[in-house]
């Protein structure tokens, strides 16, 4: 679990180009700056901890040849969580050629704390004061020239979303790469300065310019053992083996002790000096009206208010699903007609090419069918839900959800930030699992990882929507409100399940008390609706199409083979489904559906298409319309109870292969990976068993 993304974390990094690292507090628009500089399409969002691993790309900005590294957001260089340590390690030990410190102009003072800490490590820094447009909207004026004077490094004001200030930033980075500026040093308390001066020469002798001696000396005095160990590893030497350094350390520590300064107090004094220095700088460079956050306060009263928080949350959830359901109808029908209309042509083409009968049947009925199904039925809801969710994220709403629900997570013995990783899971569970890095405590991080799959990911929504629409509404489009409400209900259920399992885990295998945490509620921002929607619709479409080709097509092939190869008078498909059937019946499913869930291990979005392929193994699937689908399912003995169990099992079953692989990567433990598979499977089996048995009583 303590596996950190190691110091020279990017071994594949092309060092022929200068490495420019972008650092900053979480949620200051760093990813936007990176995207603008590199043309990378990294997903951006308005919350702390969106970038959880170091991402990088080549700078495509005119006039700046460099590799840009997007570091996870961090509040400080002495942090505990895995993502913040990754950022720290790269800044301190990754030898970046320049660091761009990105700040949020609307909360500059807090941001400067990190900037000042970075300046102690390296002078090759350009400061980018981002979100100047948001600041202006709030009446905050930032004097970048004054800031630059106070800090001693170039400072550029920018609004990365609109591209404003980026040319100046590129120029500043070029300048910093060319010759390193001399940042102004922070003056610490005289007693600290005295102790540092006792230690610094010995440190300098040991590190020989590879690390800043003053900074390292201060960290030694503050007793930051973890950081010192990381420095030793980066330098490949042991400080204790150097007699002069050891003696100087002892002397300086002794001096401080005599003055009443134990390492703990040194740490406090150091941190306070930095904070107060930041305050001083801001007094010079920032003018803000006294009541600048009135709009945010009003919004918070609605989104987190005692009586409004939960209704608004549910309303938004239902609204998002309603738009998804309604919006997906049209494109879905269109795509379905297109694909099934093309099918005869495809078959004719194969025939003309002289393909044998079995091959054209395999390609048309196996591969083409599954592919069209996935694209026609699964793609539209995925491509609509995702951008809507992104808008909420951009706006800054998701941390408010975490704030509202924190008490529940606290009661479950989990971290409040788990809610954020859970929300990421709505997009993709693998992303949610990685996102759990924002949680400091290893115990709570594991809880978040093990329970992430309980929230339905984007790939599972379309099947849920379809089944709910088919079996629980009159079926006409006007009744789309009902499936949306039911879907919202399912999400509530999945959150309850997450809490229940988290609670069970923290009472059994992951015992412990909830640790402390602080959650930033970022300023609300106007989401860039147009840009976000276009970009994420396109991204999702490409993503789903890629997956369809990589996973759905081979799955279609497998199911066709199973359906067409017979052993002792029965097809393999019938054998497999028959084998699974008794167990599947117990939990309200049938053998074919359970087989589809198993075959859907690589990607959840193919489960329903594969099941339908299985039901219509002879190749009678004639369209992806709702009517046909319902007819096929009912012909195979589906009742509303089957649909309900299918929905529940889709919510609660094993993670897909990508997620499971990510869990293994994150935990490096077979035990937790196996548990991550077993826990949701057991939960789903139990729930479906109970529902099926009770349902059959009526």
């Amino acid at each position, binding site marked *: 679990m303590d596996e950190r993304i190691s110091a020279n974390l990017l071994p594949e990094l092309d060092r022929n180009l200068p490495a420019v690292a972008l650092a900053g507090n979480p949620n200051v628009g760093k990813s936007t700056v990176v995207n603008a500089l590199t043309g990378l399409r990294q997903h951006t969002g308005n919350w702390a901890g969106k970038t959880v691993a170091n991402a990088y790309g080549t700078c495509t900005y005119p006039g700046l040849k460099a590799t840009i590294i997007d570091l996870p957001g961090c509040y400080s260089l002495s942090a505990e969580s895995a993502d913040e340590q990754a950022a720290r390690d790269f800044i301190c030990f990754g030898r970046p050629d320049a660091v761009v410190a990105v700040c949020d102009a609307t909360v500059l003072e807090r941001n400067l704390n990190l900037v000042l800490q970075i300046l102690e490590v390296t002078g090759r820094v350009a400061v980018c004061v981002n979100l100047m447009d948001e600041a202006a909207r709030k009446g905050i004026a930032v004097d970048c020239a004054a800031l630059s004077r106070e800090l001693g490094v170039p400072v550029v004001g920018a609004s990365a979303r609109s591209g404003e200030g980026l040319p100046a930033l590129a120029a500043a980075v070029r300048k910093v790469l060319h010759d390193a500026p001399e940042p102004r040093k922070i003056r610490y308390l005289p007693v600290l300065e005295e102790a540092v001066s006792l230690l610094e020469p010995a440190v300098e002798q040991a590190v020989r310019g590879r690390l800043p001696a003053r900074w390292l000396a201060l960290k030694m005095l503050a007793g930051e053992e973890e950081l010192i160990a990381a420095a030793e590893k980066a330098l490949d030497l042991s400080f204790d083996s150097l007699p002069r350094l050891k003696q100087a350390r002892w002397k300086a520590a002794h001096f401080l002790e005599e003055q009443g300064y134990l390492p703990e107090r040194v740490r*406090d004094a150091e941190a306070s000096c930095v*904070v107060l220095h930041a305050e001083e700088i801001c007094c010079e460079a920032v003018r803000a009206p006294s009541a600048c956050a009135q709009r945010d306060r009003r919004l*918070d009263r609605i989104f987190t208010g005692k009586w409004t928080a939960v209704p608004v949350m549910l309303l938004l959830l239902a609204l998002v699903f309603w738009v998804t359901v309604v919006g997906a109808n049209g494109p879905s029908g269109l795509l379905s007609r297109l694909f099934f209309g093309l099918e005869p042509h495809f078959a004719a083409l194969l025939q003309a090419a002289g393909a044998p009968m079995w091959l054209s049947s395999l390609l048309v009925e196996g591969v083409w069918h599954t592919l069209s199904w996935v694209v026609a039925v699964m793609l539209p809801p995925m491509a609509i839900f995702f951008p809507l969710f992104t808008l909420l994220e951009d706006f800054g709403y998701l941390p408010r959800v975490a704030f509202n629900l924190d008490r529940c997570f606290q009661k479950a013995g989990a971290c409040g930030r788990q809610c954020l990783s859970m929300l990421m899971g709505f997009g993709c569970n693998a992303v949610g699992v990685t996102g759990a890095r924002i949680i400091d405590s290893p115990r709570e991080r594991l809880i978040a990882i093990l329970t992430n799959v309980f929230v339905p990911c984007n790939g599972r929504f379309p099947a849920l929507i379809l089944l709910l629409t088919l079996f629980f509404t009159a079926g006409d489009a006007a009744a789309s409100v009902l499936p949306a409400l039911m879907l919202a209900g399912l999400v509530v259920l999945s959150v309850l399940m997450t809490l229940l399992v988290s609670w069970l885990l923290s009472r059994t295998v992951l015992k412990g008390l909830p640790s402390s945490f602080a*959650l930033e509620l970022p300023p609300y921002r106007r989401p860039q609706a147009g840009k976000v929607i276009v970009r994420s619709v396109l991204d999702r479409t490409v993503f789903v199409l890629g997956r369809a080709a990589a996973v759905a097509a081979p799955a279609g092939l497998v199911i066709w083979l199973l359906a067409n190869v017979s052993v002792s008078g029965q097809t393999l498909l019938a054998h497999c489904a028959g084998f699974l059937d008794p167990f599947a019946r117990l939990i309200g499913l049938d053998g074919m559906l359970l087989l589809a869930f198993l075959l859907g291990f690589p990607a959840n979005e193919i489960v329903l298409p594969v099941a339908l392929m299985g039901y219509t193994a002879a190749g009678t699937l004639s369209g992806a319309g709702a009517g046909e689908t319902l007819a096929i399912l009912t012909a195979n003995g589906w009742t509303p109870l089957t649909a309900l169990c299918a929905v529940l099992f889709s919510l609660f079953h094993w993670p897909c292969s990508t997620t499971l692989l990510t869990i293994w990567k994150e935990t490096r433990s077979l035990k937790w990976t196996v548990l991550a598979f077993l826990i949701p499977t057991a939960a789903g089996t139990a729930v479906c068993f109970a529902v099926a048995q009770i349902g059959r009583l009526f």
Partner: protein
Amino acid sequence: MVEEVLPLSGMKTGGRARVVRLNTEGAMRRRLLDLGLVEGTTVECLHRSMWGDPAAYQIRGAVIALRRSDGDGILVSALPEPEGGKRHG
């Protein structure tokens, strides 16, 4: 004026106070310091979640949510009246 010292979590919603001492240790202490919660800092309790916990505080321009169990370790002295024109409000 007699200063009344109380834990951060005991602040009135809407009230302002000055940090007197941090009684928290280890990682959380470091986090709080990094958020700018050093002695003498003015904080304002903005609002509480619907369950009464956690609460959101304005600290050096940023809004930070802290759980009651963490706020218990931060001692503050209540400030009488919001003074106009101060920046860390």
